């Protein structure tokens, strides 16, 4: 899935349709959306007439036929290049989306028959395209799930590699936060009954494809503002060119129509104008390559602006769950006895913590005889779990105060050294689990969170971007604080309830910040909707996916960090190419303006600092440079300008030097080179 290698950027199967699209997009109705390129089109049409006229009539003020034809062709190429940029970006996005869509081609679906409003037990096979929202279908081991839906009955292991690229099967079951299944994935075991959640053609992927194809692509706020700015630059150049006519009359100079139009097209910001929509599409495409489906282009852009990132501790900051790391027996208790008791108490404990205790103990579990034993499940009231052996042995493990109560009630002391151990574990960010046998304290197990390797660096990077990270955890404040410090997050919400997330988001938003979060559960949905960027995991519930504005197919909690960078890259690419485009004009002025007036004001030769051959070659070189810079910048537009978290001012300095100063210098060199090549032909 992640095939973003460079060679595929201009793959043949992408280029050919894109070339065709470049011509289709010449339709004025399509061009009108882009004011800058639309004016180029008007200029091209005028040149077409001028060329035709100069073929018939030999008018000195119009210029000769071949020159006019050359200008016309270059202008047409400028338009085609710009269209090609948009088309290739669309094609890439579409190809990416198609490869996802392929996974959900027509598959037979075992639809549950319905009589009136009542579902029967009867099942018949229909093509997946006939499934509608609300229908039920059944999937058994080996079936491909035909449609996105929500499990209403059963549990199954599912291979989602077709979507996520992750080969390990996942478990999905009815109820709770893991009830969602995606069309195109494969059921490996068991049987589930699923309710279809989207009508055909309305899944997130379908929406995303429509977005990429331009049908429902809307300009983002920043894109609108930029278009306004570019339009105003265009108007300035309309003024420059129109007023040049009476100026030239005053100076007794004749300027041909071709020269006027060339000057105009060179000056208006065609580079950014031509690449603007390609950059926007490429942003969504990059998100898609990261396996994130965005519901609008705006969401990607907003991601770049995010100030606060809410991250769940488990899975994002720490690996999975807490793990047992140490056994501390109380004084006078043999360590082996203690460990054995710990294992016994955890045998029936299905929680990851329980399993990790057995793992750490490293004893042969099968050697334990538990026939007739009664397992005590964990409840919120007792806050402990354990086992009652037939021998009358009662082992409990649980929170410090829960076990202390048991011990004290029975008249036993709580060993001092264990109490100290408990405190020291807590203050080190660990969770103490005290174990008692027949109301007597045996010792304490230390559970520790394992912080993901490399996560500190990622947070440091985020901090440099100006993004505040907030860890959300159910842990007590002491533990939360320890992990927060160790992982390097800026803030944390401890003992978090779902509404705490919501309140935190609201609080941040009131102070003017943009908040991003990731979530999967139904009770995350309000917070996902409230957040400026809400990324729902694909494994999450339908409610969560509806509420967010992005869906992550990988279910990867660290994806948010990537999304923020994609958003920033999108803005930066737009900004730098705008700067480059406008900076180019300096050189073009130096090429064209002396060329226009040199015949009547020979002194202006002093402005011809590039020493271009002749007025005609100067104008042609400028227009050619203006045209070919567009395809030259297509790779940059599609890949995006690299984002470096070095602080805003440093980044501005860097980009201003590369694209601003570079934008001033590059065309001087480019135009001179083209002029030298032209000299060989003219």
């Amino acid at each position, binding site marked *: 899935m992640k095939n973003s290698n460079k060679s595929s950027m201009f793959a043949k199967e992408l280029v050919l349709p894109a070339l065709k699209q470049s011509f289709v997009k010449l339709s004025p109705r399509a061009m009108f959306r882009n004011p800058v390129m639309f004016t180029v089109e008007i200029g091209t049409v005028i040149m077409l007439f001028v060329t035709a006229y100069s073929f018939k009539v030999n008018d000195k003020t119009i210029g000769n036929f071949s020159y006019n034809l050359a200008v016309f062709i270059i202008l047409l190429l400028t338009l085609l290049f710009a269209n090609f940029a948009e088309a290739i970006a669309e094609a890439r996005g579409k190809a990416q989306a198609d490869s996802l869509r392929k996974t959900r081609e027509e598959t037979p679906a075992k639809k549950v028959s319905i009589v009136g409003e009542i579902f029967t037990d009867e099942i018949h096979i229909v093509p997946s395209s006939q499934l509608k929202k609300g229908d039920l279908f059944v999937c058994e081991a080996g079936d491909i799930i035909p449609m996105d839906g929500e499990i209403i009955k059963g549990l199954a292991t599912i291979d989602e590699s077709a979507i996520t690229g992750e080969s390990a099967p996942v478990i999905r079951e009815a109820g709770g936060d893991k009830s969602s299944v995606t069309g195109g994935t494969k059921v490996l075991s068991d049987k589930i009954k699923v309710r279809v959640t989207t009508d055909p053609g309305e899944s997130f992927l379908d929406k995303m494809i429509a977005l990429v194809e331009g049908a429902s692509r809307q300009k983002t706020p920043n894109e609108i503002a930029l278009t306004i700015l570019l339009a105003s630059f265009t108007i300035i150049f309309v003024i420059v060119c129109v007023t040049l006519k*009476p100026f030239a009359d005053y100076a007794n100079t004749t300027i041909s129509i071709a020269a006027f139009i060339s000057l105009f097209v060179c000056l208006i910001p065609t580079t950014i104008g031509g690449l603007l929509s390609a950059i926007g599409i490429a942003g969504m495409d990059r998100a898609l390559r990261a396996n994130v489906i965005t519901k609008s282009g705006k969401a990607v852009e907003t991601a*770049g602006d995010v*100030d606060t990132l809410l991250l769940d501790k488990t899975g994002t900051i720490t690996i999975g769950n807490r793990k047992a790391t140490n056994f501390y027996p109380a004084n006078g208790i043999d360590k082996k006895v203690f460990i054995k008791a710990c294992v016994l108490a955890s045998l029936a404990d299905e929680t990851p913590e329980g399993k990790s205790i057995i793992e750490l103990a490293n004893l042969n579990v099968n050697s334990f005889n538990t026939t007739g034993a009664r397992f005590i499940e964990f409840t919120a009231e007792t806050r402990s779990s354990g086992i009652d052996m037939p021998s009358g042995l009662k082992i409990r493990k649980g929170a410090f105060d829960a076990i202390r109560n048991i011990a004290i009630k029975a008249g036993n002391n709580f060993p001092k050294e264990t109490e100290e151990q408990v405190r020291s574990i807590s203050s080190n960010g660990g969770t103490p689990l005290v174990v008692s046998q027949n109301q007597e304290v045996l010792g304490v197990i230390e559970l520790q969170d394992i912080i993901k390797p490399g996560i500190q660096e990622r947070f440091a990077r985020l901090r440099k971007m100006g993004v505040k990270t907030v860890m959300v955890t159910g842990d007590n404040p002491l533990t939360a604080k320890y992990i927060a410090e160790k992982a390097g997050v800026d803030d944390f919400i401890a003992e978090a309830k779902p509404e705490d997330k919501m309140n935190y988001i609201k609080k941040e938003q009131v102070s003017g910040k943009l908040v991003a979060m990731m979530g999967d559960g139904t009770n995350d949905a309000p917070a996902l909707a409230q957040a400026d960027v809400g990324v729902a995991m694909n494994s999450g519930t339908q409610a969560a996916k509806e509420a967010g504005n992005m869906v992550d197919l990988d279910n990867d909690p660290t994806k948010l960090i990537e999304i923020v960078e994609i958003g920033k890259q999108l803005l930066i690419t737009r900004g730098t190419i705008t700067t480059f485009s406008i900076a180019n004009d*300096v050189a073009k*002025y130096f090429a064209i303006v002396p060329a226009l*007036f040199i015949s009547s004001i020979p*002194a202006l*030769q002093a402005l011809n600092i590039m020493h271009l051959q002749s007025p005609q070659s100067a104008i042609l070189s400028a227009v050619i440079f203006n045209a070919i810079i567009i395809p030259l910048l297509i790779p940059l537009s599609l890949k995006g300008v690299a984002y470096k978290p070095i602080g805003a*001012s440093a980044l501005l300095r860097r980009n201003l030097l590369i694209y601003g100063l570079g934008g001033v210098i590059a065309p001087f060199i480019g135009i001179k080179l083209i002029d030298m090549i032209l000299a060989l032909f003219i």
Partner: protein
Amino acid sequence: MNTELTGVIVTFLITVLLAIPLGKYIAKVFSGNKTMLDFLNPFERFIYRMCGIDPQKKMDWKDFLKAMLTINLLWFVYAFFMLLFQDKLPLNPDGNPAQTPDLAFNTAISFLVNCNLQHYSGETGVTYLTQTFVLMFLQFVSAATGIAVLVGVLNGLKEKTVNNLGNFWSIFVKTITRILLPLCIVMAVIMAFSGSPTSYDGKDTITTLQGDTVNVSRGPAAGFIAIKHLGTNGGGWFGANSAHPLENPTYLTNMVELIAQMIIPIAMIFAMGIYIRKRKFANVIFGIMTVGMLILLVPTMVAEIHGNPAIAHLGVAQPTGAMEGKEVRFGPASSGYWSIVTTIISTGSVNSMHDSSMPLSGMMQMLGMMINAFYGGCGVGILNYLIYIIVAVFISGLMVGRTPEFMGHKVEAREIKIAALVTLLSAFLVKGGVALAAYFSAHHPEIAWAVKPSSWLNNPSYHGFSEMLYEFTSSNANNGSGFEGLGDNNTFWNVSTGIVLILARFIPIIGPVAIVGLLANKKYVPESAGTLRTDSITFGAMTFAVIFIINALSFFPALVLGPIAELFSR
């Protein structure tokens, strides 16, 4: 170092040294802190009561603009009719005639908008009554309008989120009573004691050494000269402006006038830093503006001090530099300095004839007016700079990957639309105006107007083009200086520049007020490490780049055909 250069440097240093305490004082005045002039409180309260003003009433940006525009319209009507009937009114000892309607239109507007284009000559075109109670009055209120609007804008930037810009009337009154009047009184006294006339008597007759009798115009000029500079107005009492010996008698008064015209624009920058609690932001702006001034100033002074290459070509030595159109008592260095100061800020008073400046100097003068934001006029200079900042904020925001923000508010499409419109405007007005004039010159030179287009220009070819370009640039910048070779007192120039004047004054004022009004209403976004700081030198350089590129792109072809062609043709 030679004395002429020392004089210029000392003048500039004194200006800055005086502007710093003045800036602190201005910030105090508008913050409502205690100042030395608090004894004026009852007087101000009297004015408010007389005019029925509630100085506590807060105005949102629309009401603020409405108040400003209404009172300006009123002043325009008053000035227009006074000038139209000045011959029938008292205080006209020299018996000067009334102004024609088109001239009255032009004069009223140009003083209303702080431009003072003056298509008439002070000695013959106006009376003591209109000079004092119309023109001088407008010089006060137009400067105060600019400052008041700036303070309103700063009120919007000062708070995190606010829906009002303060009370226009009270800011306006305080500007006059606390800033302009006191400073003017000090300066008028200096001028009067240096020899500027201060009486209502008519022309005096003197006999020169050669035995000729000469009529010398007089009048209450000293006060006029004070506000003309302190208010960055520039309209002279006499036709020759500050080149006239009675309007600028000595090198000392020359220094005083130079300091006076720059002091409020510079002080406003420092005042802004204190007032909105962003001193570094203000200091960077001051730095960038000063660099900008130097870039225009140094070539000008070099060109003027080196003298005219055409004369050098004839083998004539010019030890005193280019002296055509200059006063001997000021010399080329100080005249060059003045010519740049008066064009970068929108004064437009002159102590030498810009028409006679070297081509390079002429270009720098025009560039100063095109940019119009290196210090700039009273209040409006910073407003113009603000527009450049908004464009810079937008582009650089994108370049660092964040939705652009300015002073904690997101800059979005609406603000960009306004900034773009204002940016467009000067290119449109200047080039449109020149195109129209060039069209008539080229195609209808003999059209049957009172003054034929063929006799507009004092010089042929490039320099003639520069004369037209300069006139519209000056009008657009509300500057008021001219390449005085141009025959501009006729319907075409009076009306066309009059229209340019109104648009170029009020749209660039409405723009920033609207932008800040909209911004101030938005939610405040606190700064983070990802926020682009607008008080950094990097951002200052970015703003400078925006200023350079916008003006270069707008005006390069016009400058090529005027001063640049002239420069290379010698």
